[in-house]
Structures are given as structure tokens and as C-alpha cells.
């Protein structure tokens, strides 16, 4: 159901994101889901350290800013003490899959009843485009100036696949936001993840392949093409875990 008005869960103001950055779309999708489920008053969002560090400014639900990578632990603290509230984290790939790997894996293994929105743009956006744990083999970044060499720099991590091996993970899906169809799909996945949380089924994660035109050195449109050509083969879309049953 396309809606052209600003979701209530987002505050009416310009964001600080670069033109063509897909962070803004993903914010909006989370906010639309919060609106549609009518849970703004019962939701606490946690923003990471990364380009979305100022997310707490934009959302109209209660918000917490967490230190780099620790959001899943922060979410655990909130959710355990307030089990009937909705808690979501919103994390970049450096935040979630490098510095915060332990917090992510263990929150997932414990089956914490939280929802993680994972924005995978294959790079560190905020600090100026360094290698991320998701940077592709051969990809040029500030700290892989000769291209990521898997012998020297290791291999990218496929987070959804990795987490889906854990019994605590009730839902894991990888999506993207490159066109209306994939955007609608991403919203469906986010809704599903929040429904899983509502049903108290365990850890849910939606990994969204995202663009960083600024640090990829591409125009917004070329960045979308680059994502499809390079990220999709390495990070196949799909549902990797679903213990939600059909509804």
C-alpha cells in the first residue's frame, strides 16, 4: 500500500544523509511498519555509531544512542527489563559485523526477542570509506587501495547465513532497496521481523543491501547498478531463517 505522507514515527525534518543514500529509505520503511502496527508508544529504537548515529533525532519513538557495536547488548538490557515493549537496533556493517560481532552473535544465540535492522553497504560510511567486514573481494576502499585481497585482508562475512545457523534466530532475511519492488519487499521483511518480535519468537534480523554513493565514488544511480552487479552475487537475497510459521 503506497503511502506518500510522512509516517508519524518519523519527525518532519531533512536528514543529514548524502543524496542517493539508501539509509533514508530504510528509516522510512521502519517508521511505516511502526505506524501500521500502531506501536510507536511502545517502541524503543537504538541507533549505532556510523552514518545513522543521529537516527534518534529523526524517529518519534523513545530512542537510545549506543556505543559502536554494542546495540544488541543495549537492546538486551532494555528488552529484558521491559519484555512487553518493542526494541529494535539499526546497525551498519562495521557496527554489527566487526566491532560488535560478539554482541550480535550472542544476542542472536540467546534468542533475544529484538529486531535488528542491518544496513550492509560494504563499507564504513561515516569514517570516510574504509574496508568493512562486508567489503567485497577486489573492492577498492580507503584502506584497501589495491582492492581487497582475500589473502591479505580476509573474506567478507555473510551475516544472514552465519546467524541463521543459530537456534535463537527466529527470522533472518536479506533484501535490498533498489526499486519499488525491492523496497516493498524490504518493508514486508521488516514487518515480518516486528511481528516475530510481537509473538515473542526470538531474534529477528533484516539485512538490507544498501548503497554508499559517496564512498563508492559513484552517482546514486550508478551505485544502484553497482549494488546489483557486485553485491547481489555475493549476498543472495532471501529468507535464511523463519520460525514464525505462516500468517
Amino acid at each position, binding site marked *: 500500500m503506497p503511502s506518500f505522507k510522512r509516517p508519524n514515527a518519523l519527525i518532519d525534518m531533512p536528514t543529514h544523509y548524502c543524496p542517493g543514500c539508501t539509509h533514508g529509505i530504510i528509516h522510512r520503511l521502519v517508521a511505516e511498519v511502526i505506524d501500521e502496527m500502531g506501536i510507536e508508544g511502545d517502541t524503543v529504537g537504538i541507533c549505532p555509531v556510523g552514518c545513522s548515529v543521529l537516527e534518534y533525532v529523526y524517529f518519534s519513538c*523513545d*530512542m537510545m544512542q549506543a556505543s559502536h557495536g554494542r546495540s544488541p547488548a543495549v537492546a538486551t538490557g532494555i528488552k529484558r527489563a521491559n519484555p512487553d515493549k518493542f526494541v529494535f537496533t539499526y546497525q551498519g556493517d562495521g557496527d554489527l559485523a566487526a566491532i560488535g560481532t560478539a*554482541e550480535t552473535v550472542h544476542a542472536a544465540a540467546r534468542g533475544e526477542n529484538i529486531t535488528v535492522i542491518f544496513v550492509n553497504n560494504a563499507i564504513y560510511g561515516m569514517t570516510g570509506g574504509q574496508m568493512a567486514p562486508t567489503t567485497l573481494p577486489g573492492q577498492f576502499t580507503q584502506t584497501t587501495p589495491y582492492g581487497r585481497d582475500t589473502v591479505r585482508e580476509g573474506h567478507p562475512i555473510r551475516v544472514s547465513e552465519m546467524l541463521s545457523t543459530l537456534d535463537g534466530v527466529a527470522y533472518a532475511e536479506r533484501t535490498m532497496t533498489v526499486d519499488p519492488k525491492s523496497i516493498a519487499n524490504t518493508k514486508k521483511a521488516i514487518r515480518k521481523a516486528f511481528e516475530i518480535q510481537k509473538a515473542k519468537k526470538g531474534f529477528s534480523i533484516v539485512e538490507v543491501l544498501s548503497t554508499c554513493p559517496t564512498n563508492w565514488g559513484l552517482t546514486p544511480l550508478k551505485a544502484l547498478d553497482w549494488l546489483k552487479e557486485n553485491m547481489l552475487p555475493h549476498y543472495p537475497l532471501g529468507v535464511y531463517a523463519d520460525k514464525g510459521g505462516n500468517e
Partner: protein
Amino acid sequence: MNKVLMKGNEACAEAAIRAGCKSYFGYPITPQNEITAYMSKALPKIDGGVFVQAESEIGAIHMVYGCAGSGVRCMTSSSSPGISLKSEGISYLAGADLPCVIVNVQRGGPGLGTIQPSQADYFQATKAIGHGDLKIPTLAPNSVQEMVDMTVKAFEIAEKYRTPVIILADGLLGQMMEPVSFGEIENNAAQYPYGAYGHGNKRERNIINSLYLDPLKLEEKINERFERYAKIAETEAAAEYDKDATIVVAAYGSTARVARSAVDKARAEGINAGLFRPQTLWPFPVKQLKEATGNAKAVLVSEMSMGQMVDDVKMALEFKLPVEFYGRQGGFVPNPDEILKKIKEISNN
């Protein structure tokens, strides 16, 4: 009042629960494991009780950040190497003005050091617990009874001033068994109105945050926080001390118990010695030390470290009195005769 025989660590946990702390996040490390074990047994039986054995001390302190940030009274405990890992979270807790209690049952360092008792984290607790301009009120119990009383006090200070509070114990206090009374501990826990727990469409949104990109706002925030620190320094500094002594022995925690025996022995031998025992390390009880040393010709500091409290003593005395040091490291507790010997040396000078 009924007394029960308990280990310091267990007494601390029981006191926290009686004071209304229903949420605990920890990670095993000797010599504080009894706190974690006690909480894991007691909390699941309490309505709304939360116990999580985290993946690390980093995980545990950030669970505390989330829990306190959602407005719920909570605590964590650890020992020296684990406190180093918590330092990131402690800085964020201070930066977001969140109350919580952090217990450090100190062991020896640096590095893995030893599991034996130590007091070598004084600098860490009082001067360098995390990055940024911050202070953390630090309480120093010297008995199992004070493990109880100071745990209750720690929550009170934490919530009154919106700050994390550290209880700086040591392995000896944690493991020692003594009769202890819980008296009438009041459970006055209530969800903090500034917590982020869902606004319920009834109030403005709450934001828990330590980021201030506008220099004016950050400076203003830090100044406001330091006004609170000034109030804490004025009202919460505490010490127990003898008056009119010529030689003052300054010691805290377990070492203060030994120093007490040494001072009593010295007095029995006709030396006018006295004990000064800080119960808060930050704020350091400056006024109290001045009063205790009104007649003194010298001060002897004794610690299970290389002498980390010495600087605070010298500064409190404005460098007007000679300050000597006697300490043991490696897990040794100074014994009364060693301290007595040092008192005699000073007395004969």
C-alpha cells in the same frame, strides 16, 4: 537485629536485591563470582527479576546501559581485568547521565596479575575510569556490613545525582565471612521518568544519548554535570577517623582493618597514632583528613598497591605534612607488625 553469617560478595548481592535492584548483568571472574552466582539464583525467583550472564564484561555493561536507560534500577559486578573492559560503557553511562552500581572486587594486576586481593585499581576508579571529563563516585567498604550498607548507599547516590557509582572492594572483603545485619533496607525502586521505555503516546519522547555535536551544548552539559559533581564532593565525602593523633595512618578497605590493629598496638606502646579511613575515594574526604591531621606531624599511607592513594593524601594536605608509604603487592595484605614497625620508625624520627 538478626545477624547472619555471609561472604562479602553474597551480602552485597542480597543488599542490592533488598534495595530493589531486580536486574543484574555480569560475566564470571574471580574473586567476585559469588555475586553473579547469588544473582543467578535469586533474581529468577523475583517477579520481574532479570539475570543475564553476558558474553563479556563489555556486553554486561552495555546491558546495564540499556536497562538503566530504560529507567530500571540495575547493577553489574566484576574484578579488575573485567573493569578495564567495562570502561567504555562506564564512560557512555556517565555521558548519558544514567544511574547504576558497578562493583569492583579488586584483584592484582597489571594484566592477568593474580586472583589474590589488591587495591591497585584506585587510580583507575578515581582518575581514569573512562574517556572524557567525568568522575565516578567511589565507595570503599571495609567489612561485610559495609558491603551491605554501601551497596544501598550506592544506589541512593546513583539515582540522586544520575551517575554510575563504583563500590571499590577487594578480594579479601569479597571472600571474607562475617556476621551481618540487613536492618530495614527500604525498597524504593521506581522507573526513572527520563527513561526510554516507550512514551505510550502520553509524553514527549525520551532520548538517552551522550552525543553533542554542538560545542556549546556539550560544554554546557559538562558544566552542568560538574556542578552535580561539586554537590557530591560537598555532601557525600565520608571517612572514619581518630582525632588528635600525632601519626596518622591512612588506609581504606581491607588494609584499614590491618592498619586499625597496628594503630591500637602502637597506642598500647605509648605512641599517639590514629587511623584515617576514607569511605569515599572520589570524592576524597579532604575536610575530614584535615581534621584528622590537625595535630599530626606525619602521615603514613598503607595500601595493597605501590601507593595510589598517596597523591590524594598529599594534595588534601596541601603538601604541608610529610607523607610516608608502606604497601604490599602481589596479593599480600600488609600485616599489623609491618605497619607498626613503620609507625615506630616515623615516631623515632
